Structures are given as C-alpha cells and as structure tokens.
C-alpha cells in the first residue's frame, strides 16, 4: 500500500536560482542549505514519489482558462521561464498514480482539470529542481496546480478539502509507494504591485508559528483580505501549504530556515511537517 512518509513547505521564488547581483549571499546560502536539507530528508525517507503542490503565475494558464486545480497525468517538462537559471528538462513522472488521484477525486466530488503535457513554471519546477532531483533522479513526480495566485482564487476551504482528498487517494493506492508532499510558495511577497520588494517578517513568523503548532484551523481561518494586506498577493500561496498539510492529519512543523530577502522580493520559509 502507498503511504505518505513526509511533507514539507517551502518557497518557489525563481530568484533563488536567478539571484540579482545585490543578493545577500549569506542569506541565500542559508536558503540553499535548507533546500539541501529537505533533499537529504527526502532521500532518507526512501521516497519514491513526490507530489508538489504549486501555483501558476500566468505562465501555464492564461485568461482564456484558469482552472481551480489541475494535475499532471502525463509528460512533464519545464521550466517555462528560460531566465530562471534552471535547465529545461523532462521531469520523471508517475502518470499511473496521477491518474489514480484524478479518478479517486472524480469519485469523491473533485473534478480535476488534467494536463497530459504539463509544462511547469517556477511554482512547481523550482522545488523539484532544488529538493527532489538532488534526492535521487529515480524519484517520480506528480505536479498539482491550485489557483492560489490567479483570480478567481481557490478558497482556503477548498484547498483543504482537495489536500485531504489527495491524501486519501494516496492511501487508497494499492501499490507500494512512499510519498512525500510539498506545499510550495510564499511566504510574504508582493508580485508586480507597487509594494513589490516589501517583506513582512511579522506575518511570515505568524505563518511559521502556526505551521510548527500544526494549527491548520487557524491557518484556514485567515481571510484572503488579511493575507493580501499583511503578506501580499504572493502570500495567498499559503493555500498550497494548507493543501499539503491537509493530506496528512495530525502534523506538527519544524522550521528549517526563515530569511526575509527583499532583494529576492520574498520572505523565504522552509519547514518540515512531521506526522
């Protein structure tokens, strides 16, 4: 039987791999070291498949169609952004298990949008590049997109329900599979707005504190308006974290690092979710 053996929350800031010249190298080194620590844990957990929950930034989807949530069930490539310093690649997929998650969802009230040829933007490929591939090239990937950054936004409640469904689907998969789930994005950042470059450590520590306590209810109670005011439009990506957390009930968190980096336009937090 498949089981979830671990989960992590982490940023997917493309400037981690495309850092501008004025970047604080000590802070960046701490972030890269935390990603390496996640990779080590993924290897240590003998992970065979990673489900990465990410956002789109108007690269994968356009105004003509914005799905609430989608799953990659076939070929996976990326990144879409040639400037982010990550080599264009074919990502090792687990299409059989992805199909199972899709079908399990369909049977339980979740009509997934499906991509047979999913090209990932930084919201999913960056965590794969920094945390999954270094853990072992044999590890398979299932990319999941939720509409946490593009309007209409998915609700916190639906993110939670979807994450719970993903967890149930994994546990219902009859094959032996050791699964890790990544919730990616955040924490505070203002993308493209007049406040871009602002970071709010107070908000970020609030999120990390709730993560460490495993207080999913308090995270879910955060209104979009509150998140937008205190964490910016990019902080809505904590819905990706909530989705990941909801797949493994009863977790607590362990923060690996937090670095507020205005030059990378983001408060960067990385945590392990421990069951």
């Amino acid at each position, binding site marked *: 039987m498949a089981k979830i053996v671990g989960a992590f929350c982490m940023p997917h800031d493309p400037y981690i791999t495309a850092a501008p010249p004025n970047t604080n190298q000590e802070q960046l080194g701490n972030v890269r070291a935390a990603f390496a620590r996640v990779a080590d844990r993924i290897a240590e957990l003998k992970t065979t498949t990673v489900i990465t929950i990410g956002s789109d930034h*108007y*690269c994968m989807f356009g105004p003509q169609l914005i799905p609430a949530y989608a799953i990659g069930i076939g070929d996976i490539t990326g990144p879409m952004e040639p400037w982010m310093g990550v080599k264009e690649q074919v990502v090792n997929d687990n299409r059989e298990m992805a199909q199972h998650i899709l079908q399990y969802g369909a049977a339980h009230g979740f009509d997934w949008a499906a991509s047979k040829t999913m090209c990932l933007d930084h919201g999913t490929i960056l965590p794969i590049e920094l945390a999954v591939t270094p853990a072992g090239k044999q590890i398979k990937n299932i990319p999941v997109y939720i509409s946490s950054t593009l309007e209409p936004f998915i609700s916190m409640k639906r993110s939670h329900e979807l994450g719970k469904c993903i967890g149930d689907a994994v546990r219902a998969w009859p094959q032996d599979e050791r699964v890790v789930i990544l919730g990616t994005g955040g924490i505070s950042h203002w993308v493209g707005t*007049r406040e*871009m470059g602002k970071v709010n450590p107070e908000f970020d520590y609030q999120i990390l504190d709730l993560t460490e306590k495993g207080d999913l209810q308090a995270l879910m109670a955060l209104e979009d308006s509150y998140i937008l005011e205190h964490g910016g439009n990019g902080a809505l990506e904590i819905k990706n974290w909530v989705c990941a957390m909801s797949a493994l009930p009863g977790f607590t968190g362990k923060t690996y690092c937090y670095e507020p980096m205005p030059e990378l336009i983001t408060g960067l937090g990385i945590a392990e979710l421990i069951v």
Partner: protein
Amino acid sequence: MSTFMLEKALWDLGDDPHKIAAFNTDPDAYLDNYILTERERKQVVNLDVDEMADDGVSTLLTLMVWIMIRGTESFPDYLRKMGQEVPA
C-alpha cells in the same frame, strides 16, 4: 470590453516570443488583433504598468510582459514605473 481582453493581449506576448517580435516591430498592428479601448492600447504601447495595475490588470502579467520586452535587467525600471524610489 474589459481588462480581461487587455490581459489576453499581455498574456499572448508572454506566451509566444514571435508575438514579442511582432509587437516590437509594429505595436498597433499587433494590438489590432484585440478589442481594446484607446486608453488600453496606449497603456500597452507605452507599457504603462502602473496605470494598468490601477485599472485592475493582473500585476503578474504586467511584470511578466515588462521582463519579456525589456529584459530581466530592467527590473529596477519596473519598480520605478510603479512609483518606487530605486537608486540608479
């Protein structure tokens, strides 16, 4: 129309490098493919990202298109255009 069509014009630029070339060659001809108001056409031609943001256009798109057209090194200029004081 609405800002949605303006978002489509921007998104297409980000999606297809050939369209960037077409836009750079003849912005008006490129924008003839979209139903836009004169104000919206002017905003795209001049990359008035601040005005577009104020009108409700996604800032993910305004940032993406700015970088696609002017390059990643122009990021400080984007911030200046958005009203921030950025040292030269």
